[in-house]
Each structure stands twice: as structure tokens, then as C-alpha cells.
């Protein structure tokens, strides 16, 4: 199957939805692709009451003329202006449905969002140790947790939101452990006062989690249990104590999903995609909006998405108000980064036996002898498993200071039949040749 779009948007979270809605106003053929079964991204996930902003944008999307491709993921780009996507869900056995599609575009908007950063510590691979957003997503996806005892830990504003939601679902939140010290969080709270919408959010969360221990400068140093989590050891000010629990929801803020921007060759500075005033990346015709340009939350993502949607359809004159809102949102990006900067002591969490690469089971003790992600990958298979370094890459970047290795197609696992049919990842794949070229350049 082969389709052409005037504007193709990758990622159906707040940035992607707002980009697609504004682009569709132009009357052109707009596509919106996402690997999840429904629109909303991670933050507007179904399974709980959605905020008014979310309902409004989802309604606008439903009313807009946008071709929706849910349950598909992009795995390669054979040439400029073309992407290949494979089905994430299952093909219907009744129909002769294609497993992959070729997507042609005039303009591409990357709204690939962010994922949680995970840091390895003893026991983090045990079942029921999940991300903070991870457990929240699983619960919204039907996991039953009523009456369960939960420790929420890590860093970032997500911890409070997750704790509030899980408490609302009838769980017992034993503790919320924020690694940042209180001294760093106070100025953050002051900055929030200039952002009324966010203050209201914060107050609501505090009420919902009343009665829960909220520790700052505190983090889990170990998780133990036979076959699944039974207990977490927490540390604060040199003191350690053990807390029996059913789930540990632990995530260290967010890192952007950069696999596709990197595959396409978009310029990246200090871990984020660089964009100009109109969300245009360094690659002509490729725009980027939301978390990949800087972790700034829903409101900024919606503003950037709209600017990208308008710019991609040549209507920048409608974006004046949005540009001012974006400037305010970018102050929030800096405030977040400063408040939730990781404590360097978290680098010492893994023991020699702690697995760092969960796909290939590569322990910390083996990895610490290497000097780069590439070196470690070639000798230990770290980052070569199914997730392709999506989890361990952010960990080794923080723990060892290793830069992410180069991105090669397919950027997500694809079936052999799809690879054979598309040629992605093979000797004749031009994007692969580019990656090889880059690799030679960096060696």
C-alpha cells in the first residue's frame, strides 16, 4: 500500500493532535500515525476522566478531516519524503491486510513525544517494578490494583500526578520519593506561581495525595522479592529503611523519543531536536513539536504542535499569539530541567550484578570496563536487543556519560517479510549507507 500526504504527523499525543488539526484547516490531505490503538498519546490515555483541554482537542480531531493510522509504527525511511510503517497491532484475519505501508509526504511533523528515564538499581528488573508513568499506563490499560500497596519514586512532576491517580483508584500510596532536594523544588514552586493553570493542577494533586509520606532527597536503592517485588529499600540522608509493597512505580523524569528525528538526520543539540521559529528542523520539510524539542509538558506541546501545523501549510500569519505562548512555555522547560536535575549519587546505584541492558541481560560490572556505547555494544551486546537501547541508552548516558550510539534502520523491529519487501536495513538501503558513513566519520 502506498499513500501520499500533504502533511504527515507522526505521534498522536497533544503535539501531534494539535498539529494535525491545524494543518487540516488548510484543506490538504493530512495523516496522523501512532503505534497506540487510540489517539491521546501517553498523557491523554483513556481509562480515566480526561481534562477539559484533552476532551476539546480530541473532539476537534474527530471533527477534522485527518486520516488516522492508529496501531502503526515507522521503522525506516528509504529516501527523503518517504517513510515505511509496519502494523503494531494484529492484521484482521478476515481481510487481506497489508503488514506495511509506504507513506509519502510533502511536509512531515515529528511529534514523537517522550518516554520515562529509567536508572538501574539492584532489583529493578523484578516483575512489578515499573515506571511511574508505566504503572499508570498499565492501570489505565486495565491492570487491577485496588487495595495494593504502592511506592512512587524517581523524579519530576509526573510522580505527584501518578500518585494522585493511583490513590483515586483505591490503592494505598505508602510513599512518594522525589530524588531532588527540597531546596531545588522551592524555586520551582515559586516559578509555578507565574503559571496559574499549573498551580491549580499542583494544589489538586496535593489534596488527592494527602496522608501519603512525601520525601525529598530520597530514592530506592534496592528492590527485593522472590519472582516478583515484595519490598523496597529507600534511602534518605544516609539512612536506609525497608518498605514491604506490591508495586514500585519509579521513573526519573522524561527523555525525548529521538529515534526517528535522528534517523532522518535532524540536528540535535544537548539531547533535543533543534527547531527554528516555525518548528522547522535542520532537514527541509521536516518539522518537530512537543517533548523532542524540550521537556515542557502538555501546554507547550499544544502550542508547538499548532505552530507546526500552521507553518507546514503556509499559514504562519495565524501563529503570532502562539509564538508568545511558546516563549512562556520555554521558561517552564528551563524551570523543570533545573528543579529535577539528577543527583550524581544516583550513578552509584547499580552493583556489579545489576543488569543495565534488560534485553540482553548485561550487568553493570561488565559494562564499566568500556568507554563508549558503541564499544560496549560491540563487545557485550548492550543495547542490541529488542528495545534497541531505548531503555539502557538513557541509563548509560547518565551513569557512564556515554553519548547515544548512531541510529540505524529498522528503528523498531520489523518482520523479515517486511524487511525483504522494503529493503530497509539491507545493503541497498540508502539510509543505512548514511548511517555507516556517519559511523566512519565518528570513529
Amino acid at each position: 500500500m502506498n499513500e501520499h500526504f500533504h502533511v504527515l504527523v507522526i505521534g498522536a499525543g497533544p503535539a501531534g493532535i494539535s498539529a494535525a488539526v491545524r494543518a487540516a484547516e488548510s484543506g490538504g490531505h493530512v495523516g496522523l500515525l501512532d503505534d497506540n490503538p487510540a489517539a491521546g498519546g501517553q498523557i491523554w490515555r483513556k481509562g480515566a476522566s480526561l481534562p477539559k483541554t484533552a476532551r476539546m482537542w480530541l473532539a476537534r480531531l474527530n471533527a477534522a478531516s485527518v486520516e488516522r493510522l492508529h496501531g502503526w509504527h515507522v521503522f525506516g525511511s528509504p529516501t527523503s519524503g518517504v517513510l515505511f510503517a509496519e502494523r503494531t497491532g494484529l492484521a484482521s484475519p478476515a481481510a487481506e491486510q497489508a503488514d506495511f505501508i509506504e507513506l509519502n509526504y510533502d511536509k512531515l511533523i515529528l511529534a514523537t513525544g517522550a518516554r520515562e528515564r529509567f536508572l538501574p538499581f539492584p532489583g529493578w528488573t523484578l516483575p512489578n517494578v515499573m515506571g511511574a508513568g508505566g504503572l499508570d499506563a498499565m492501570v489505565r490499560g486495565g491492570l487491577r490494583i485496588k487495595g495494593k500497596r504502592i511506592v512512587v519514586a524517581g523524579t519530576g512532576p509526573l510522580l505527584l500526578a501518578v500518585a494522585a491517580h493511583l490513590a483515586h483508584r483505591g490503592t494505598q500510596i505508602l510513599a512518594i520519593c522525589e530524588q531532588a532536594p527540597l531546596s531545588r523544588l522551592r524555586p520551582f514552586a515559586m516559578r509555578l506561581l507565574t503559571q496559574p493553570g499549573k498551580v491549580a493542577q499542583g494544589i489538586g494533586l496535593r489534596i488527592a495525595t494527602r496522608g501519603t509520606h512525601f520525601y525529598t532527597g530520597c530514592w530506592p536503592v534496592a528492590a527485593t522479592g522472590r519472582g516478583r517485588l515484595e519490598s523496597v529499600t529507600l534511602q534518605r540522608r544516609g539512612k536506609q529503611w525497608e518498605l514491604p509493597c506490591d508495586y514500585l512505580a519509579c521513573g526519573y523524569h522524561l527523555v525525548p523519543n529521538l529515534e526517528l528525528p535522528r534517523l532522518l538526520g535532524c540536528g540535535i543539540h544537548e539531547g533535543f531536536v533543534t527547531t527554528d521559529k516555525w518548528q522547522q528542523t535542520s532537514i527541509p520539510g521536516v518539522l518537530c513539536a512537543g517533548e523532542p524539542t524540550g521537556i515542557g509538558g502538555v501546554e507547550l506541546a499544544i502550542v508547538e504542535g499548532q505552530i507546526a501545523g500552521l507553518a507546514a501549510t503556509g499559514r504562519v500569519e495565524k501563529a503570532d499569539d502562539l509564538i508568545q505562548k511558546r516563549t512562556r512555555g520555554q521558561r517552564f522547560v528551563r524551570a523543570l530541567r533545573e528543579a529535577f536535575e539528577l543527583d550524581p549519587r544516583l550513578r552509584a546505584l547499580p552493583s556489579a550484578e545489576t543488569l543495565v541492558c534488560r534485553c540482553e541481560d548485561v550487568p553493570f560490572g561488565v559494562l564499566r570496563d568500556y568507554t563508549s556505547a558503541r564499544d560496549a555494544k560491540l563487545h557485550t551486546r548492550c543495547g542490541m536487543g529488542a528495545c534497541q537501547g531505548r531503555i539502557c541508552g538513557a541509563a548509560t548516558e547518565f551513569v557512564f556519560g556515554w553519548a547515544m550510539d548512531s541510529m540505524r534502520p529498522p528503528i523498531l523491529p520489523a518482520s523479515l517479510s517486511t524487511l525483504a519487501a522494503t529493503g530497509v536495513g539491507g545493503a541497498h538501503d540508502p539510509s543505512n549507507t548514511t548511517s555507516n558513513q556517519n559511523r566512519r566519520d565518528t570513529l
Partner: protein
Amino acid sequence: MHEHAHKSDTPAITLTVNGAAVSVAPGTTVAAAILISGSPTRISVTGKPRAPLCGMGICFECRASINGFAHRRSCQILCESGMDVRTL
């Protein structure tokens, strides 16, 4: 232990995980159904049980065989009646 879907007024979906029947509410992901069944989602390359970490299609800990389609990210797929889920 067999658990019933928590909302009795919504029709439950019944599927099998490693041959055992599991009933879940509509909108439940296959990953959640696997955990409800009591099974890990996969066994790691050194033989350890694993369950979902990220819940959003990034970590691949939840991959399972669904209706014969191997290595599917079960957290990205919703349960359907009669689904045959096999953990790896």
C-alpha cells in the same frame, strides 16, 4: 486464582493466556491481561521472569505471541474475545 472483570455491568471479554481463560473489561490491554493471569510476560535471556516496565511500547518487556503473531508489544494491543496469547 481466577479474577472476574471488575465492572459487572460491562460485558467481559474472555481470552486465553497460555491456554488458561482470563476475563477482562473492554479496553484492557493484552499486557494487563497477562499480569492478571498471574504469568510473567517473558523469560529473559538468562532465565529471569519479566513483566512490563514502561507500559507504553518502549521497553519490549511485554512482548508476547498473540493469535500466532510473534513478538507483539502486548501493552499496545487491546484484548479481543477469543484471543490466544502465549508468553515467551
